[in-house]
């Protein structure tokens, strides 16, 4: 079993134009920087991207938008991105907005092998339009289908050669469910270690879900909204 690849170029080498990708991260926190750069460099296009946000103008998925590589964005919040707005208003970009918890849970359902789940979010709103409604214990729920992604691309803090992943802080966000949901899952990690070095008690994503892994480099880890307090 060899899941370790040399780097981002090799990890994404068979992603075709027109593919559906899941990309981990919340805002710019925990995004797979190396793979995004490689996708931008290679110019794969016509992509459907499932990710909570669409990055900022010059970082994250924003870089893929600049290259007109994204056909459709499935996200919960897409502010902070002028190029995104321009493409949306001009009709170049299709956007599907989904409640954040629904987005996470539709990823989770895919990773757990469940075709659909019943969720409360969006009942009585335009999100409910065209969806099946079922009543359980007096409450209406929407039938929400699991996502179907060709590739899931996530970034973890630590990983081992078996593909086991550990995340750090709030950089975990959507990545575990996405990692579990991809038909092919690519993980870039800050620290890649030999099998046996990670304590099995603290694994967030077992290696069975991860097909390719590599140690990323030159992480910028940009902060979107730096807030601090003064020392007394």
């Amino acid at each position: 079993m060899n899941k370790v690849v040399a780097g981002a170029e090799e990890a994404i080498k068979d992603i075709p134009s027109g593919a559906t990708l899941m990309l981990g991260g919340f805002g710019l926190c925990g995004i797979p920087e190396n793979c995004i750069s490689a996708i931008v460099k290679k110019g794969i296009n016509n992509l459907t991207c499932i990710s909570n946000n669409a990055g900022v103008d010059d970082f994250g998925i924003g870089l893929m938008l600049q290259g007109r590589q994204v056909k459709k964005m499935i996200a919960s919040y897409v502010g902070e991105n002028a190029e995104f707005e321009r493409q949306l208003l001009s009709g170049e970009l299709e956007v599907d907005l989904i409640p954040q918890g629904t987005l996470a849970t539709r990823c989770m359902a895919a990773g757990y092998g469940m075709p659909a789940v019943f969720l409360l979010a969006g009942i009585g709103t335009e999100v409910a339009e065209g969806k099946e409604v079922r009543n359980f214990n007096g409450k209406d729920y929407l039938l929400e289908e699991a996502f179907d992604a060709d590739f899931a691309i996530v970034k973890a803090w630590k990983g081992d050669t078996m593909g086991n992943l550990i995340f750090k802080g709030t950089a975990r966000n959507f990545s575990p469910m996405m990692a579990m949901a991809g038909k092919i899952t690519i993980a870039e990690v800050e620290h890649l270690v030999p099998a046996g070095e990670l304590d099995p008690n603290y694994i967030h994503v077992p290696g069975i879900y991860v097909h390719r892994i590599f140690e990323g480099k030159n992480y910028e880890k940009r902060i979107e909204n730096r807030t601090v307090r003064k020392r007394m």
Partner: protein
Amino acid sequence: MALTKEQIAKRIAQELQDGFYVNLGIGIPTLVANYIPQGVNVVLQSENGLLGMGPFPFEGEEDADLINAGKQTVTTVPGSAFFDSAMSFGMIRAGKVDLTVLGAMEVADNGDIANWKIPKKLVKGMGGAMDLVAAAKNIIVAMQHTNPKGESKLLPKCTLPLTGIGCIKKVVTDLGVFDITPDGFKCLEYAPGVTIEEIKAKTAGRLVIADDVKEMAV
């Protein structure tokens, strides 16, 4: 005098009870954390995957891997926990979060809320707002009583696309505190210097005044 944003936050903080798990939205709700009464211990939940959110870090101690739902750098308090987004919304959905405070563009007198989309203006998305309002067992809205044009935001029916239906229990505005009841908005408290007449004039939805209505203590 109508309340400042800080005073609205301070009044909402009086609703916090010891042991509460609380989710604070962006804007005025975030300020509530600055006014938690002494002796009341609450755990702040940030829906991107953190229980036990602390204050902003000291300069130089910011961690790109530690942010809140507003993408601001934050810290953790002792006893905090990280988790993924599915679990985060799982605990919200399962009713484990005791109180959610969020902002709104409009609230209707039946508890409907609109706070995510203005037709013909650019839509940025609902984020976690729809999940929170659909599932949270206790929701307080923090907002200005009127919009910048001076029009009431407390309405008989929301005009903007809905975020959730029949879910809001209480509204705290710069003019007063209102419960949502079968009779509409029930004014429990008025801001110091604000008259009932002003509240009546600026509330478009059904409004009743509580028999024991009193001046807000802020």
